[in-house]
């Protein structure tokens, strides 16, 4: 393994699903993720944002090795993920899911939920595993007394702590957090976000943080990848993206964040009024053009190519060679 390589890297990763049931229905391709290239450096928090249906959860599944890409390749420390043993991947990359109700098996005790990864990889003796479970429970703020409780006895926030404990049990390096707080109440969301921040510093973790909540993303992330209809349309540091959004979609997303500041009132979002397009039948050219306030003729004709704009990646006809040439 190459120590200098990014800990995770996607090169032109695509994933297409064929939609349609039965032998007589013509299947349509759903391009959930298209040509996504991004890298994740050790110790950073990479956020992936976008509306529902933009492909962020599919990307997460591919990063976890649960879903093979249908095009391109994911590299883990410079080695193709497809060549790495499934078990080796699972020891180093672990997930935290959105819904703490569906992510814990209702028929199992916390002890057996948290120790599942240890059991699968046969790490340590049963006593050592139990000790590890207790240790990790304390780390995420769960009292030892709950060891033999069931998920149904816990609140949403407590369950999410269990999910985090399970992910951390085998000491992974990367956590892929897919909307880890969107099912939680605001006060509990803050508890979990703080816990994630502290664990990252303490255990030197790398996060892939997927969310639709831009306020949370801005708070948590060091770099941000914005996705729209399967494509990566803007990718840069949090400062670049949030302080000076370039892509019209990123601006629109930032405009629609509602913070508890009564002086601002409701944002005017005019062209975004169009509905999110059907992913089975995406618009031609740039998929965002029907909703884009700055759409030009070229936008409906040609797919913009990714361009480097002062160290950030942008996929928009407003930037890159075309405009540079004009």
């Amino acid at each position, binding site marked *: 393994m190459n120590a200098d390589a990014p800990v995770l890297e996607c090169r032109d990763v695509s994933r297409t699903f064929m939609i349609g049931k039965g032998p007589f229905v013509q299947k349509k391709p759903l391009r959930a993720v298209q040509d996504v290239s991004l890298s994740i450096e050790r110790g950073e928090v990479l956020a992936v944002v976008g509306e529902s249906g933009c492909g962020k959860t599919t990307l997460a599944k591919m990063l976890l090795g649960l879903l093979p890409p249908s095009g391109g390749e994911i590299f883990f420390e410079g080695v193709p993920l497809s060549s790495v043993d499934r078990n080796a991947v699972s020891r180093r990359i672990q997930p935290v899911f959105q819904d703490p109700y569906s992510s814990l098996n209702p028929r199992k005790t916390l002890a057996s939920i948290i120790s599942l990864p240890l059991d699968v990889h046969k790490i340590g003796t049963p006593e050592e595993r139990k000790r590890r479970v207790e240790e990790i429970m304390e780390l995420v703020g769960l009292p030892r007394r709950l060891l033999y409780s069931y998920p149904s006895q816990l609140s949403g926030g407590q369950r999410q702590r269990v999910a985090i404990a399970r992910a951390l049990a085998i000491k992974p390096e990367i956590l892929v957090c897919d909307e880890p707080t969107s099912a939680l109440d*605001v006060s509990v969301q803050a508890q979990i976000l703080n816990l994630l921040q502290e664990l990252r510093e303490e255990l030197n973790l790398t996060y892939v943080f997927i969310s639709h909540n831009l306020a949370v993303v801005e*708070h948590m992330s060091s770099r941000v990848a914005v996705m729209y209809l399967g494509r990566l349309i803007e990718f840069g540091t949090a400062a670049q993206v949030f302080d000076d959004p370039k892509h019209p979609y990123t601006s629109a997303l930032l405009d*629609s964040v*509602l913070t*508890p500041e009564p002086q601002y009132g409701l944002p005017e979002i005019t062209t975004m009024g169009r509905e999110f397009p059907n992913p089975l039948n995406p618009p031609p050219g740039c998929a965002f053009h029907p909703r884009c306030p700055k759409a030009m003729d070229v936008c409906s004709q040609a797919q913009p190519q990714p361009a480097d704009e002062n160290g950030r990646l942008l996929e928009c006809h407003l930037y890159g060679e075309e405009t540079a040439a004009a």
Partner: protein
Amino acid sequence: MTNDTANIPYSDESILAVRGMNVDIRVPAGTLHAVTNSAFHVDRGETLCIVGESGCGKSITSLAVMGLLPGNATVTADVLKFEGRDLLSMSQKQLSALRGNRMGMIFQDPMTSLNPVYTIGNQMQEIYVRHGKGNAAQAKDRAIYLLEKVGITAAESRLGQYPHQLSGGLRQRVMIAMMLMNDPVLIIADEPTTALDVTIQAQILHLLADLQKEFNMALILITHDLGVVARIADRVAVMYAGYMVETGSSDEVFNAPMHPYTQGLIDCIPIPGKTERGALLGSIPGIVPALVGDQEGCMFRNRCDFAQEVCGTGIIERKALGEQRGYRCVIGPEQAQANLQASRAQAAVAAGE
């Protein structure tokens, strides 16, 4: 129970006035006090937001007003008046003549709130004809007019479509248009944008605000999202564990919150440009208490940084600060503001480290 909400003034013009409302629900384990001593009112052209976390009783409050609670719930109130008429003394028949007619309600999940086996047109016409506003043809014209109003293109062809053929955002627009069919004076929207994407959320809220102005309605918006509340509300009521712990105008509540719960809740939310990136957020420890059984003292005391011995006994009186401004806590207003400044300063220091 002594009632300290009876003296909060409201005008005779108020569309909806509620004072001292309790909702108790019989559950196997006992009685669940879902709403206790609740008081609010809303006038024409005014937006009241009821905000709180899950299980705080905000949805129960709205269902109680609509008369849509299940049979195991009991509503009592000193005042529960809609357009000056007492709702509690009305029969189910009289109530259902008001519902969908003078008051409309919009629900959280547009995917399941429309009947899947009937067309949009059928469901929109039905509410019009049922309340005797006209015949089917007139209902159709009105439906087309309203669908256009809520920003739906090709309105006439939409009437023949079924709910599953529309996206979530469109369905919520249909729902809004449907509830406007009979020119209601009050719209209650229960988490109308929670199930939608952020960009769609902003549009729907805009639409609601615009329509409210145009039709001069009263709007009660129920949500857990403080961002939504801050941007759309005229007045705010913060609920916790069945109690309205703080009320006031949007500016008052967000700029000078008094109740430790409100203060904590606002500090939980990262604000781009204000909250330092990567710093720890303010947080409220612990979880919401169970509401089954007898209650005493402040329901928030177990999670409160400023809890004292007096918080555990008796009824916590509402402190009135103005005509509509008030909060339910033993801490006085000066001390409350001082506490807020101190905890924010402390957070700033922690972030600076």
